[in-house]
């Protein structure tokens, strides 16, 4: 028998495929169906903190107040670009192949930003502080890509 140190190293390739299904809950569902059917973006307002949060959620993290549908407010549709980047490499999990531009847009009326794709504009033209508008997808399914991307307002 070969000695342990004489044995060639052995590597084994495997992979795991896992299918999951995320339930949005009642508040999340209302957000997505409103996005899909009415092309409106909803945030949720915590009256105690006087803040409008995106994404909408049932508990305010800061003060633990229970929120509900009556606390929904429409935000945007336009907003201000807070930050952005261009991703130069592709991974299977990315929503589109590289080069991929995305950033954080603070929609009018919201206190937190939305991370989303940016399109219809060359990367070099983007500036922090630019005014942005959503471009909705023709076919919408009730997920965040019902907004195709954000693009500079006006241009």
């Amino acid at each position: 028998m070969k000695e342990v140190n004489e044995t060639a190293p052995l590597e084994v390739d495997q992979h795991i495929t896992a299918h999951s299904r995320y339930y949005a809950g009642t508040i999340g569902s209302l957000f997505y169906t409103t996005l899909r059917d009415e092309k409106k973006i909803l945030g949720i307002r915590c009256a105690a903190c006087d803040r409008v949060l995106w994404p909408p959620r049932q508990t305010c993290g800061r003060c633990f107040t229970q929120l509900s549908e009556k606390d929904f407010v429409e935000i945007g549709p336009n907003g201000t670009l807070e930050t952005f980047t261009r991703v130069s490499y592709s991974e299977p999990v990315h929503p589109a192949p590289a080069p991929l531009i995305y950033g954080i847009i603070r929609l009018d009326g919201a206190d937190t930003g939305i991370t989303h794709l940016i399109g219809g504009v060359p990367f070099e033209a983007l500036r922090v502080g630019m005014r942005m508008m959503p471009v909705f997808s023709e076919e919408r399914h009730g997920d965040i890509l019902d907004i195709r991307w954000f693009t500079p307002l006006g241009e």
Partner: protein
Amino acid sequence: MKRNVAVIGGGQTRHAARRHDVNQVELVNEAVRAALLDARMTIDEIDTVLLGNMEFFEGCHMTDCWLADGLGAYGKPGLKITTGGTVGATIVSAGAHHVASGLFDTVLCVGFEKQEEGDTGAILSGVAHPLYGRSMAGAAVGYFAMMATSYMAAWGAREEHSAMVAVKARQNARKNEYAHLKLDITVQDALNSRMLAYPIRMLDMCPASNGACAVILADEKTAGDRCEKPVWIRAMDTAHNEQFELDWRDVTTRKPIFSKTSAARLYRQLGVSNPLDYFDVFEIYEPATWAEMVWYEDLGMCGPGEGFRMIEEGKTAMDGPHPVNPSGGVLSTNCIGASAMLRIWEAALQIRGDAGGHQVPGDVRRALATAYGGTNWTVLTALSRDLDD
């Protein structure tokens, strides 16, 4: 314990096959709010938040990040722990250490699983050793089935004994408003149910449930000031097994299998000579009926090979001398990340006299809660009503 630790409150969701109406954050928040209500505390009075669930079971990595809102964990110290099926008890163990150390006075422990959201088969296959057995990754039912055939061959137990355990669990659960499966079944119903992996039938096996459990632990002073019925954690022991040499499916082995090692250490710590005399109620983590019978033996409730006789003789019925799983056990509710915590919480409810329809008759001074995980852990928790008992 360096400082004494009490369970001063807790809560659980109504466990169910489907919870499409809530996302993961909202699910845990239900249990957290129930626990805060039970303890009459606000989230601001909680010093630290500990969270546990099965790794990636919901297709969500780092659930501690995404559940921070619902947990009330913003800005607070805390831990995320994953130890397989034992995690609910591991979280309480970690919480007890937090309080006992003197560094924290109040700890919120949360365990959950939103099992409908994930691909449990695919993820569980990742538990098997990648290079020694993954192709045969048998799912939990396969492992327990192999243990069952060894048990039957070694001791002469029969499928009827498994059916008796199934009936006890399902009938007890009918008295537990929070249980997932409440089934009015007979031994014959169990024996007629669909065979999954011989000898384990559908009614012999735990369900996949969506649910959460939260318990609040506190130091002695807080417990004395704030809680009418604190339940004391007198000792906890946790032991990790090894999958190959310490094969827990080998029911005749004399090796230091985790369940035996842990029980021996816990009993030594507490001065227990006979657990049947010492504890008034047991909440045992039993993913399958056969596991309950084997673990009667490993816990020293009876001798080797006698576990099936205990169920045959009704010794562990709710109104029997040594009630086991009055809650219906894991066989009735299995939101895995919460299951081990539910054993502790149910034991606490029994001690408090608050178990409602499934309260065991008689005085409950001391209880034993066990936890099991396919990652080869066990955690045992001994609870009592009085600190000096």
